């Protein structure tokens, strides 16, 4: 269930848009912030709040890569492997993380602590290679730096 506070936050945004359907992404972001992912129950709740069919919400959730229909790990590491990062060794960063965490890109550790993903360009081309952990960008990575960051995440 969405918290009363979060329902209020969504309703407060209504004055920004002429339709309630336009609250789709803002509402899904708020819901995902509360639950960590968007379950069928949550999507149905958002659908009711916005007065749109559940299928429409599901269609949106499956379209955008940052909206998760399944739980992700406590720390979601997203390694950019697009051109600028590739040219500066992102393959080594990814390989090191796969070895260190014992999972392949796209997987979550069995204890739910880590999810590792390969992502498209995140706009850190001048500070490549990089990965993001949630909203935090870690740039100009070296293997030593990667280890320090992983060690610091509990």
């Amino acid at each position: 269930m969405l918290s009363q506070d979060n329902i209020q936050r969504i309703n407060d945004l209504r004055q920004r848009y002429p339709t309630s359907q336009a609250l789709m992404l803002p509402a899904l972001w708020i819901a995902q912030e509360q639950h960590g992912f968007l379950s069928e129950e949550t999507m149905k709740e958002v659908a009711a709040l916005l007065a749109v069919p559940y299928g429409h919400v599901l269609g949106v959730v499956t379209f955008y890569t940052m909206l998760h229909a399944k739980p992700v790990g406590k720390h979601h590491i997203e390694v950019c492997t697009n051109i600028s990062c590739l040219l500066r060794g992102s393959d080594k960063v990814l390989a090191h993380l796969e070895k260190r965490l014992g999972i392949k890109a796209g997987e979550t550790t069995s204890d739910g602590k880590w999810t590792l993903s390969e992502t498209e360009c995140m706009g850190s081309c001048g500070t490549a290679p990089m990965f993001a952990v949630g909203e935090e960008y870690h740039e100009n990575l070296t293997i030593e730096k990667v280890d320090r960051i992983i060690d610091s995440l509990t």
Partner: protein
Amino acid sequence: MTATTRPSDPTKQSLWKPVILPDNPGLHMIDVYLQNGGYSALKKALGMKPEDVTEEVKKSGLRGRGGACFPTGLKWSFMPKQSAKPKYLCVNGDESEPGTFKDRQIFEFNPHLLIEGTLIACYAMGITSAYIYIRGEYGKWIKMVEQALSDAYAKGYVGQNILGTGFSTNVYVHKGAGAYICGEESSLMNSIEGERGYPRVKPPFPAQNGLWGCPTTINNVETISNVPVILDKGWEWYSKIGIAKHPGPILVGVSGHVNNPGVFEMPTGEPLLDIIHKWAGGVPGGKRIKAVIPGGSSTMILRGENLEGVNMDADSLKAAGSSVGTAGVMVMDEETDLIRVITRITKFYYHESCGQCTPCREGTGWMFKILKRFEKHDATKADIDLLLDVANNIEGNTICALGDAAAWPVQSMVKRFREEFEARTRA
């Protein structure tokens, strides 16, 4: 990190004093922005007739910085003066073109310039609601822009009856959720409306039928950030910066195999070789440049030995067989495996194709599959022509430009580096 990276060759510093990203670390704070003449361009604009503001932008020669180089003032003039429906402005901060990282600097270091430009654009076109659409991955930068926006609201620069002039407009930040295609203008509007980010068939064009079926203009973040500068210093001053047909300061992002990567602000028309060697510090180890992608991953790749005389502006890059795009320059040294590069680029378009049009949805996947064979040295000579055939059948046959954007890198790579493909075929 600073707003712009310093050029490696100090003589280049005297070429241009940045106006979009000035060297002032406090500029993101509204008080500092105001002390440095901030919001005076808005005041000036509010004292003019709206159509004169559009005329000023038209005469400045400003062209869009999001990739298409469309004249901004002309785009604004497409908006109906009288409209029974509300009009909207969308500021495109989706910044997802691989190799592009310039708008992010504006969000962080000069967000008020973006807000001021947004307000001037709204005034010129009679718009009362603007949405700044920022990619979801930029969560941290979204908060910075929201902070700047709330400071601007508090001081009366945004909202009702701005500076007592009777002009009112609201500006909102809309957070994307991870989709390259949402940088395409009609897809961006669908995304705001709460739809999947599917591009729309044009016509109708946004100026007639855009957001919620209302007249809408979509401009890139960097484009909008040039507007206060034009109003402040006048169109004549602006039109003399750089190349006459494509004037103004441009944010050039240089990445890949260079010693001093970063975003540089410079006048248009700077030689590409100077950008690589004198701004971005040259190639590590003094290695030869094998290839350069000059304007983000959608633009056609150039051979390293053909860069002499190629400059960073629309016409020069067009003549060289590429385009200025988003000015994201990616440099590849002599040891680069270009087959790997083009396979990765194609994987990107395959992943980001929205799936509406068959040529793009299927074609990008087919190209990726064929390229994987080259990557594994398991292709045949016929695969080169097959690859080109698929690319040629995507180009021009889709609703939006993503299809072209997927085809051009492949076509140019085969055309300019055919030997790389031949070397990877089975004997």
